């Protein structure tokens, strides 16, 4: 059994843990992998982040990041870089959609960089569960928009950045199996600039509500 203390000293683990961490990295030869950067979380921080994810974040996002509540986004399998950026945006209070302000500004306020990295690593390595499939006609319309955009309204294809399968590309987030309510609210926030992301504002500014709903419905049903 592991105990959770959100504010324990996790950035400087005990000597034994540090030695174990170094030894593990050497034995496993993971130094060449992407996560073994200078600021990558050590093993103690990873273990702490896992306990944090299950015991604190999990109340809303589910213990493995497969949120059971439509209000809260699914984090399982999400792009790690995207998660790091968002957690830092929450911490810096630069992401301004309503739920970010109401929930995540507080939750991320005291997270340090290694913990953010470790949380991102934890969630990005979780297996996303299938989302709910919605109305077939709406999902078909959403697929059309996702794959081809709406040329007459200047809406580009979502797939060009988020990937044909919606699994995300580079720093662009995974959208497949994401909660449709969450996607809908984010698109609305991009459109209104409450969540101020220039690229997504450009994408969403001409989307109508029913078009947003269609895209969100399609994406939640994607594996």
């Amino acid at each position, binding site marked *: 059994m592991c105990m959770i*203390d959100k*504010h*324990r000293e996790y950035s400087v683990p005990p000597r034994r843990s540090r030695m174990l961490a170094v030894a593990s990295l050497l034995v496993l030869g993971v130094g060449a992998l992407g996560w073994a950067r200078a600021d990558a979380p050590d093993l103690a921080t990873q273990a702490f982040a896992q306990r944090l994810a299950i*015991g604190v974040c999990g109340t809303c996002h589910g*213990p493995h990041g497969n949120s059971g509540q439509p209000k809260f986004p699914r984090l399982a399998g999400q792009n790690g870089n995207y998660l790091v950026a968002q957690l830092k945006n929450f911490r810096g209070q630069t992401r301004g959609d309503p739920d970010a302000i*109401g929930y995540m500004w507080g939750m991320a*306020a*005291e997270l340090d960089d290694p913990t953010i990295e470790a949380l991102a690593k934890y969630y990005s390595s979780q297996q996303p569960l299938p989302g709910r499939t919605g109305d077939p006609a709406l999902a078909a319309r959403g697929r059309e928009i996702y794959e081809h955009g709406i040329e007459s309204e200047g809406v580009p294809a979502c797939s060009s950045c988020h990937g044909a399968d919606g699994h995300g590309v580079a720093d662009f987030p995974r959208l497949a199996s994401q909660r449709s309510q969450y996607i809908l609210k984010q698109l609305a926030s991009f459109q209104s600039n409450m969540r101020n992301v220039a690229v997504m504002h450009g994408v969403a500014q001409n989307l109508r509500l029913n078009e947003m709903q269609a895209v969100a419905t399609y994406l939640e049903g994607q594996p």
Partner: protein
Amino acid sequence: MKSGAGNTRALCGAALLLSVLTAPAALAVPSFARQTGMACEACHTVYPELTHFGRVFKANGYVLANLKQVRDVTAKKEQLLELAQTPPLSIMVQASYTQLSTALPDLSSGAPGVAQNGTAGFPQQLSLFYAGKIAPHFGAFAQLTYANDSGTISMDNVDLRFADTAILPGDRSLIYGLTLNNNPTVQDLWNSTPAFGFPYASSNAAVSPLAGTEIDGTLGQDVAGLTGYLFWNESLYAEVGLYRSAKQGATNSLTGAAGPLDGTISNVIQGVAPYWRVAYEHNWERHSIELGLYGADVKLLPGASPAPTALRGPFNRFKDVAEDIQYQYISDDHQITVAGTRIHENLSLDASFASMASANPTDSLTTTRLWTTYYYRRKIGGTLGYFSTTGSSDAGLYAPTAPGDPGVITSANGSPDTRGWIAEVNYLPWLNTKLSAQYISYNKFNGGSSNYDGVGRNASDNNAWYLLVWFAY
């Protein structure tokens, strides 16, 4: 009013019940929001009703903190201190106006007359809270209250908690903790149990019925209890503990000190009173449902009621077993709650029967409450609630009006039966400010619908409007 001796119920019932029924509902306090940096809606639909996140926050001991901390650690990284740079203090104010359907008799002179109808409470209540983290895994919800009926400041609800979380195989969480509190069910996580159940605020200038079960607030602020609990996977909850009398303002008649309690004190728990609670909560999509059982076994020594008696010998025993249910639907736009509880109490009145304070050696009492609440965007909403208390007729416990007395808080037929409805409309201009209009309607009161006290008062005469301004900062 439940007391160890029946005539205490009859003589002091209304006054004490007022304090019980208007025992300030502890509520969402803004210090929690300051501590977590999270909006009220994370933990509440509308205060004081908790969401699932709020229940987990409470079970975890109120310690989730996202503020910079003043720390001290040993060379081995042991935490010695974690103090938030802002103390978790809050102030709450309730100001109210109560209008009875029919004014009460005026006892100030022998001449017939009625008391002024329409009572302003300004404030009805003012509370200071310490609500938040004290140390790692140790937090408190502690309330100090000024009330206009007593005109004094006194200790109100207190819930001190130690809690921690274990991660079990399969990544299931297990929250475990201890709570030291002064009101059975104040520590509970659901709003279907008495301490945080509807109505969340009541008039202290209206008339309340005579009968109430022990676990239904009667012991509040009069006991100290230590209970331990487990909350598995944020769904299965179990708690057991013991309560002992912890009288406020009581002194030993010999020494004048705060104790030990003696026969000049009323209704002292013999030994300790066990309390237990099990509940299961299931969450899916925007819904959650909880089903639970709780109870207590309280043995009360009459002591000073009706006359000073040594704290030994026969006692009155109250065995309470209750069921509760709570359903919530929570979306950004709509918040719907259906909740209720039924408390059944078996009374073994050895002490009261021996002193002829009760008419029967055993009685029973059942209280049922059921309510549904709707809010639109946490801004405007209302609650409709039904309440009922039924039980054995006992002319000792629920005494008739004595010749020449004004009645009102008596029962002509010795029955405790009371039932009625409460309707409430609320508007929240801000999430920490609630404006309420509440109407309570009695179909039956102390055993009767008409002339329930034998001197002409009807149940509906006790219907009341209650207007409330309630805010906290």
